[in-house]
């Protein structure tokens, strides 16, 4: 147990330090989602009432696309110098590596959301009519839903041709219920009609089911070579 924790922490701090020094992923994600915000704003040009209805969809689609950038480079780094092969033959538990990578992506995407959410609020003139604090659990559960499967499928697509395009093709169909829950919950909270509880519970279920599945099957994926 302690080895699991220490290996997870070591991998996580290494990844964060690498990202902090280069800032490649976060910068491209930020710029990418900024572009999405601007393009959506031009294409729809909504008034305040309409933007409450569509903002949930816009925000999460922007974050979903931006998250692909972070997810795609998750494992690419480990392929250089055969780091992943070294990991495979070491006695370290496979799940420690997976948890570290998923947490790293979670931190990265959360940071992106924290920086981009205010911009969305300004550009779309948003003000929540429902209980705004509920957006926090929606954001946490939703982000985890995207990154846990994203990290897993990124590891899967390592073994395929044109892996950068493979990841969204695998991730998007499986993520449909999660994306729908996030979008609906956000829409309900922003427009203040009804309760978002059903969607939050569904997101939580999604997270629990797929986190368990990922932890159970990651060893198989890591050893597949």
């Amino acid at each position: 147990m302690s080895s699991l924790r220490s290996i997870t922490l070591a991998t996580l701090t290494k990844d964060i330090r690498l990202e902090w020094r280069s800032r490649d992923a976060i910068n491209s994600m930020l710029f990418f989602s900024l572009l999405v915000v601007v393009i959506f704003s031009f294409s729809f040009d909504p008034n305040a009432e309409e933007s409450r209805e569509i903002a949930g969809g816009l925000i999460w689609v922007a974050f979903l696309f931006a998250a692909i950038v972070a997810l795609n480079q998750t494992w690419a780094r480990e392929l250089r110098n055969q780091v992943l092969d070294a990991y495979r033959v070491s006695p370290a538990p496979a799940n420690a590596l997976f948890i570290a990578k998923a947490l790293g992506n979670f931190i990265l995407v959360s940071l992106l959301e924290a920086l981009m959410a205010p911009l969305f609020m300004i550009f779309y003139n948003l003000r929540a009519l429902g209980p705004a604090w509920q957006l926090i659990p929606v954001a946490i559960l939703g982000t985890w839903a995207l990154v846990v499967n994203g990290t897993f499928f990124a590891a899967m697509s390592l073994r395929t041709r044109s892996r950068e395009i493979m990841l969204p093709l695998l991730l998007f169909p499986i993520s449909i219920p999660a994306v729908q829950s996030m979008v609906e919950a956000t829409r309900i909270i922003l427009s203040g009609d009804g309760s978002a509880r059903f969607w939050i519970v569904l997101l939580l279920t999604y997270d629990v089911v797929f986190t368990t599945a990922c932890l159970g099957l990651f060893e198989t994926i890591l050893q597949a070579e």
Partner: protein
Amino acid sequence: MKSGFRILAAVTALLLVQGFYEAMWVAPTERTMGEVQRIFYYHVPSAWTAFLLFFVNLVASIIYLVRKNPKADAVALVSAEVGVVFCTVVLVTGPIWARPVWGIWWTWDIRLTTTLVLWLIYVSYLVLRRFSDSAQTPKLAAVLAIFGALDVPLVYFSIWFFRTQHPQPVIGGGGSIDPRMLHVLLINWLAFSCFAFLVCWARYGVEILQREVDEIEALESLRGVAR
């Protein structure tokens, strides 16, 4: 083996002809929908067959992960391919029926959406198999099949929250159906299942042969290198 295949092919042909005849002329015309309702005898059997094949795919994938039996993997591949074809038939015949009856081609209803998502998941499964050419493809595909199966109930619940427009399932859904219609439906389902099984059988033979060829070619090229 070969004669079994021929017998099944003959039986399937007979059943398909009989099913077509009954669906077109024997089954009574539905009172409100009229003739267009007859597409039901193709739509519903295709759906049942597709779901059955996806279930076979899941079971074969789990067996492959546990036993590492390459034959289970071939079964998984074949059932997914044929399942996608039948699922496509469902998704095409549905709107053809819905347009005159509901007045719309498509709606985000629970059964429509779940079927569409299922179709998307299995298309991504086939794309993965196509894009991955290492010896580990079966393992990755089997894992994806399990993820897909976990996803389906979640999709179902997420749409269940909206009002559902699709007619209630005719069997075990509280709906009622004329026994003559039920008879035609079941004949067609039997015919479609036999047809699906026949196609799977042929495709399985091709797949096994293809793998043998690949193996021999790999061995040949190794020998060439050694020489």
